[in-house]
């Protein structure tokens, strides 16, 4: 326990978390500090490209593990399954309509790539290796949750026929394509390719992540200010219990398929994190009547900060206890 607290303490004192806290504080204090949309998007493209490339290069270096397919399969099952759990919990813990509950559930089945990136960076700091193909698992988990949510809605007739073109949009959304594409490039060019561009994608990575999290803090803070009264106590509790539940299931599956400690941590993080880019856009098209303030505030204002500050160190500690480190 005291070890977990020490871990959490060390995590809270990292420049990454402090940058997020700075952004959050600035937004809550109504400072006009802001990062231009184009720059924030540029940074997210950089982070996706770098994390994908590094994952691919690491696979090229260590060879393809027999567990790759199992890990991707586990990810897909989690992404399909977690929304059902989330939906059930929401119906019990909150007064949200079925539509709102389904929309929220879709977010929690999908993933937050920034949480994943932050976890990678914590693992690196502790010199814990992880399977390079976990980025492929991340990509595989982005979309299935949306289908589960649509099925939840369709079941009781409140939904409609799926919008034409939506499926293609979801599967080919920019972050999936970039993550998978740079993963493949990294795999093809291998360590040699990584060496060529490592002073771009490796060395400055953590610094860019700081600035990006500064922006995430600003955005989360502004979101919280604009939607202060949207969430009741039950919803906030859900925003913290759901990642814990997801991480536990991720832990079990990671152990069963035999991932390394680092790999288990990353699967826990993927299961615990909630989407705030791809899924919200899909929800605006597929379930426009669902209230965006609810799902964005929960995902970005409650679960994201929880995972970033307390969740990740906790998952690292649990995985280390279970798998050994």
């Amino acid at each position, binding site marked *: 326990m005291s070890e977990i607290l020490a871990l959490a303490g060390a995590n809270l004192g990292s420049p990454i978390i402090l940058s997020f806290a700075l952004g959050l504080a600035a937004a809550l204090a109504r400072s006009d500090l802001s990062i231009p*949309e184009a720059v924030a998007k540029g940074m997210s493209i950089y982070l996706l490209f770098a994390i994908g490339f590094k994952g691919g290069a690491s696979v090229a270096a260590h060879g393809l593990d027999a567990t790759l397919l199992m890990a991707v399969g586990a990810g897909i099952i989690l992404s399909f399954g977690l929304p059902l759990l989330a939906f059930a919990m929401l119906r019990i813990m909150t007064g949200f309509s079925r539509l709102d509950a389904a929309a929220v559930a879709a977010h929690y089945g999908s993933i937050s790539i920034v949480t994943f990136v932050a976890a990678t960076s914590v693992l690196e700091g502790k010199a814990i290796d992880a399977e390079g193909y976990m980025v492929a698992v991340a990509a595989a988990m982005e979309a299935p949750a949306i289908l589960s949510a649509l099925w939840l809605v369709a079941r009781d007739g409140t939904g409609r026929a799926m*919008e034409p073109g939506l499926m293609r949009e979801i599967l080919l959304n920019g972050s999936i394509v970039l993550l998978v594409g740079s993963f493949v490039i990294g795999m093809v060019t291998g360590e040699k390719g990584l060496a060529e561009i490592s002073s771009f994608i490796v060395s400055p990575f953590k610094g860019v992540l700081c600035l990006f999290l500064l922006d995430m803090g600003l955005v*989360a803070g502004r979101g919280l200010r604009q939607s202060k009264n949207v969430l009741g106590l039950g919803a906030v509790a859900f925003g913290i219990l759901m990642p814990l539940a997801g991480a536990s299931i991720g832990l079990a599956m990671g152990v069963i398929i035999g991932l390394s400690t680092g790999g288990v941590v990353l699967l826990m993080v993927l299961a615990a994190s909630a989407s705030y880019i791809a899924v919200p856009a899909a929800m605006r098209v597929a379930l*426009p009547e669902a209230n*965006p303030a609810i799902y964005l505030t929960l995902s970005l204002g409650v679960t994201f900060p929880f995972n970033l500050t307390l969740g990740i160190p906790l998952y690292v500690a649990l995985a280390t206890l279970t798998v050994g480190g």
Partner: protein
Amino acid sequence: MQTHTAKRIEIVIEKPLEGRLTDALTKAGVTGYTVVPVRGGSGRSGPWTREGQVGRAGMVMVICLIKPERLDALLEAAFAVVERHIGIVSISDALVLRADRF
């Protein structure tokens, strides 16, 4: 200078819907439109700004100059897309140079 009467339709809609709206307009026989970025705004669904925005989807403004007789077809098409979404549609009278352009 020779001008032609026209209707100017201005639609503010969520960005994820932009492609669906312009496809619908094209199907309704609209031959031209212009899309202008939106920095922020406020409506029934509350205020938002592009830079302090959760989800980062945002909105866009689509401006459409059409022959008056095409107005109804356009409004039907636009409404089918906008109906369930946040956004606003307005119409005003205008004159246009170069009739071949619209």
